[in-house]
């Protein structure tokens, strides 16, 4: 059975982030194309459940048998997802979003809004929060769940104001010596006329600069899609951790295919070539830790996935908290100065 997000999240909910709607329609399981055998098995289980009221004794056993089969099927499928399949999992409709992490992991979440010069960009949710006893500054891309939310959050594609808000809040965190925690899940920065006019590139550059400049611990978790410049603007951190089936790339497989292969048909090849999986990125020395996802992906057991990410963030913060501020900043800069593919040799 596929877990529903709404119920467990509600239990973990302490303070709901402003206007983030957490119960959404899970009536459709949103199977991915490669999950067809699993979908069929689960449909059969559903069917049998409908019959089980009729008092037939071995239906229970049959359900159990099928459930085991689903289990095996899930393990096998998710054990060897191709990069393109991972891309689809990373973008899965039911995959937990930043607001779910906030609801489950953060206490006293106090949203802070606005860049103080133009607008509040809801593609990035942000605010003060208490994480396992420690006050932190939380920033995360939010894609939104239903149509209205997706529009309000602009599908997690931030405009310059989102990055400028992030810079403002990173500086605030720095002043009060609060660690910065970012949750990365964006298709990329918003490609719009207004965004360009108001300096999208400059805003991203300043956000990268701010990430590198703060002298407080900075932990970044890539929980879904790490889309290019829009992602890196929040992901230059002392520790970058990444969910097993998340992706992080310079360009989307679709974009790469259309530029280099001049056809969207080659998206899978592009996904392979780009080396955008957590495993690849570990080998390239770009991320620091990979977090295992529940069987069948984070969307099958969101609570567990969120808790695992929480544990990894906690661990990273514990490692970083004792390092003197100047030293921390220097180490972060050295880490990025060294990113020239050396890890391979």
């Amino acid at each position, binding site marked *: 059975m596929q877990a529903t997000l709404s119920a467990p999240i509600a239990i973990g909910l302490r303070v709901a982030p402003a206007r983030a709607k957490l119960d959404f329609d899970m009536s459709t399981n949103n199977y991915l194309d490669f999950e067809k055998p699993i979908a069929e098995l689960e449909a059969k289980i559903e069917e049998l459940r409908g019959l089980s009221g009729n008092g037939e004794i071995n239906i229970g056993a049959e359900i159990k048998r099928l459930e085991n089969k689903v289990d095996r099927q899930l393990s096998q499928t998710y054990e060897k997802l191709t990069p393109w399949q991972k891309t689809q999992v990373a973008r899965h409709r039911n995959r937990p979003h930043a607001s779910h992490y906030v609801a489950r992991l953060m206490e006293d979440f106090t949203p802070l809004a606005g860049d103080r010069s133009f607008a509040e960009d809801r593609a990035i949710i942000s605010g003060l929060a208490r994480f396992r006893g420690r006050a932190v500054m939380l920033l995360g891309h939010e894609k939104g769940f239903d149509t209205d939310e997706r529009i309000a959050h602009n599908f997690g594609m931030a405009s310059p104001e989102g990055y400028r808000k992030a810079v403002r809040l990173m500086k605030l965190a720095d002043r009060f010596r609060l660690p910065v925690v970012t949750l990365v899940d964006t298709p990329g920065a918003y490609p719009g006329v207004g965004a360009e006019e108001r300096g*999208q590139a400059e805003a991203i550059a300043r956000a990268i600069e701010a990430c590198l400049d703060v002298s407080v611990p900075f932990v970044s978790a890539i929980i879904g899609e790490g889309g*290019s410049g829009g992602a890196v603007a929040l992901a230059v951190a002392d520790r970058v951790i990444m969910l097993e089936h998340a992706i992080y790339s310079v360009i989307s497989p679709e*974009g790469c295919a259309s*530029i280099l292969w001049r056809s969207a048909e080659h998206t899978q090849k592009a996904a392979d070539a780009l*080396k955008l999986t957590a495993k690849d990125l570990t080998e390239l020395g770009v991320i620091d830790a990979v977090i295992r996802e529940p069987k069948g992906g984070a969307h099958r057991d969101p609570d567990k996935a969120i808790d695992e990410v929480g544990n990894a963030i906690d661990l990273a913060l514990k490692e970083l908290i004792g390092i003197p501020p100047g030293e921390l900043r220097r180490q972060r800069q050295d880490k*990025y100065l060294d990113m020239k593919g050396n890890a391979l040799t």
Partner: protein
Amino acid sequence: MNWLTNYVRPKIRALVRKSDIPNHLWGRCPACEQMIFHRELEKHLYVCHHCDHHLRLDAKKRLEYLFDDGDFQTIELPPVTTDPLKFRDHKAYDSRLKEAQMRTKADEAIIVAHGKMGGMACVIGAFDFGFLGGSMGVAVGEAIVSAARLAVLQQASLIVIPASGGARMQEGILSLMQMPRTTIAIGGVKEAGLPYVVVLTNPTTGGVTASFAMLGDIAIAEPGAVIGFAGNRVIQETIREKLPEGFQRAEYLLDHGMVDMVVHRRDLRDTLVRVFALLRDPGPTADIVKLPQPELDIPPVGSDVKGKPDQA
């Protein structure tokens, strides 16, 4: 797909392709299509004297035009991992790279040089769009890091002149990581109290714009240059409307407050020299300024001010 489409057609295309820089006695301006005598073009620093279109310049020429007497020294760039992903589309990235090196006779999409400008020490990193679209991979990142370090070492001003489509996607995530990397490098120059000036040329887009190119203490753009983050085709597909006139052009960015000035190529060197002189030589300090003597003819407060001609 066969050898015709893969091999012969690109060759023919390469032969007949319209080149931005006319190579023979006569050339044609790609903007106004007027014929220009090659020597004339050279004299005008590759700006069309009919329509003022700024033609693309290779890195070497840029350096010649900017340094005093065209005199400069290039530095050898540290070797880095090439092709970290073993990337392959139709063709292996490795062979694309070699081809670009053969064609441009350069190692990479950037040249770093040092010399004097207006007598002041200066390091310049100039991009070559002709080399894989001036894209930024590990080697270009390394070049910017080297340029920044050299500037600090020589207490020189740093100029970077991008002409780039953005990150080099064949180097995947490592090309994206050059964004923070170059940002740190530039930070070092600023921390040393040295000026960092960017000259944005056509085109400057993507990950290059969203890192060191938009972090200049002073941002100068060449007339007509396309400068932006997202490509305008992507924007067009997203908004499904006509883009505003002049969108992402240097003048448009100036109007929207994104660059300090748009400077004609013939004035570029003088402007840079003036900026460096103003930033680095602030002139006499306060201690030699004499206070004005109180014997000036100042009418006492409340006295009648007479005879302003325009007032009724």
